[in-house]
């Protein structure tokens, strides 16, 4: 279907490319310029980059970022796919349940964060209260203050917040699976698991490829939840890179250093995307 001269595909994508270029190119160039200059606008070489990397907490923060991103994406996908498949089944009240499931995603991020911080609170939080009433724990757990539990707790909040997005995308993908495919295997007496494994997941593959990439990018830029629950504490145990960038710019007023960090971060994510697209493009060929 490729055409000889200019592919019609180019005409289809042109408006979007132009629009995004208008909005993005100046901010990009300006970020690069800022990263190479000091606050008076003079050329600073690599100094901003050196300062950005040499902070003693950099290793801990990189580790936290990886932990947060991987943890979030895995649980968002698991929960989301599960929910999507479940809600594609026939049962009474299905459309109400589908709408209810959207709630975590639709609730404003800051409000969700504040509500969870409140629920997790050691002393007046409902979670400790319930667990103690049920006899599961005997004294309050400091979910957000214990270095061992703070990241899992934040990942749980992030997974809760975004799994409906995955579920909706999966649901939409499953809608376009032709009924014949199911009927064909059901005649053979295939199990539900067989259907999931051999029909649903392969059909969903292109959608899941995109969803995974987007979730990764969002988790890599997601500051609201951590920033408004722990602020990165206790003692940097939940600090992640994007918060550092935000704080550098808007709390320390170090725009140049924030830009340098943004450029490094950008390159890092770009590498991930290129690798990812290689894999995904390779799969696409067959």
């Amino acid at each position: 279907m490729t055409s000889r001269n200019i592919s019609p595909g180019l005409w289809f994508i042109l408006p979007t490319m132009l629009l995004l270029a208008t909005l993005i190119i100046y901010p990009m160039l300006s970020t690069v310029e800022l990263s190479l200059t000091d606050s008076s606008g003079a050329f600073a070489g690599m100094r901003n980059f050196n300062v950005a990397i040499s902070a003693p907490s950099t290793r801990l923060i990189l580790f936290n970022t990886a932990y947060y991103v991987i943890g979030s994406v895995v649980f968002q996908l698991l929960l989301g796919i599960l929910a999507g498949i479940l809600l594609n089944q026939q049962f009474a009240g299905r459309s109400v349940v589908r709408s209810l499931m959207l709630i975590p995603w639709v609730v404003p991020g800051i409000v969700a964060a504040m509500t969870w911080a409140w629920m997790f609170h050691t002393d007046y939080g409902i979670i400790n209260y319930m667990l103690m009433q049920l006899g599961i724990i005997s004294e309050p757990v400091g979910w957000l203050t214990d270095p061992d539990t703070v990241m899992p707790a934040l990942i749980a909040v992030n997974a809760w917040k975004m799994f409906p997005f995955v579920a909706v995308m999966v649901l939409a993908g499953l809608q376009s699976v032709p009924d014949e495919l199911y009927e064909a295997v059901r005649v053979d007496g295939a199990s539900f698991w067989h259907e999931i494994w051999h029909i649903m997941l392969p059909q969903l593959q292109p959608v899941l490829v995109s969803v995974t990439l987007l979730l990764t990018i969002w988790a890599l830029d997601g500051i609201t939840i951590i920033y408004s629950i722990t602020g990165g504490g206790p003692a940097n145990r939940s600090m992640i890179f994007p918060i550092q960038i935000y704080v550098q710019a808007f709390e320390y007023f170090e725009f140049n250093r924030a830009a340098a960090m943004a450029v490094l971060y950008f390159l890092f994510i770009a590498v991930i995307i290129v690798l990812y697209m290689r894999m995904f493009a390779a799969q696409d060929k067959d």
Partner: protein
Amino acid sequence: MQDRRRTLVISLPVALLVLVAVFPFLWMAVSAFKPLAQLYTIPPRWLPDPPTLVNFKTVLFESNIPRYFVNSLIISIGSTSLALIFAIFAAYGFARFDFRGRSAALAFVLIGQLLPTATVIVPLYIVLNYLGLINTYLGLILVYLILTLPLSVWMLTGYFRGIPKELEDAAIIDGASHLGVLFRISLPLVSPGIIAVALYSFVATWNEFVFALSFATEKEMKTLPIGLAEFSTEFDTDWGAVMAASFVMTLPIALIFLVMQRMFVSGLMSGATKG
């Protein structure tokens, strides 16, 4: 028979799912009906006694929330529709044609999402100011395309790919143009995907805070998330009012989706099975 057994097997996980999804929201919603003195107690108090409507009164009659609701509606609908129009063409182009630089272009679409908000916000402000779009609906609608367009393109590309190519090839052989194929054959097939993407765009713009904060400074242009922040004063947050306002912000979307379920189903009906 088999369906009934399935329903039983399904109901337990569904109940669990609903519980996990809804519990924090219920906790929020219940607090919206609590008077100040019952919000924080040790041990926590499940239900308000007696329930009060004072928080909803504050939100609906004594705050800017109703005005901001209209602003948010205009901006979110505007941005969502624009994103969809651009994305449908782009996604079709990416999904159905092979051309040089296709992968690079697809990657470029994502670039706007890769720049941390903290660094793009000042240059964006300068661009908008140059175009005279600070404090306008159009300004925020355009800026929000950075958030919504990349995702819409990527997701729709995935959905278009999911359609069996043979369906389109048959129409092409019959002499239909690419545009004709897109609108008459492919688009109806991906309508569930379009709804999903529209829902995403709407939610993302509906809840966006930082851009709205910087690019809409006048009351006439501010959006709901700013309205939420207005319940915080120097030393405290009117938590009951925040909860009531979140309630007002959240329910319409869930209701719209409930209504849109029908379109999900119609997407299925007109699907490949009839082809």
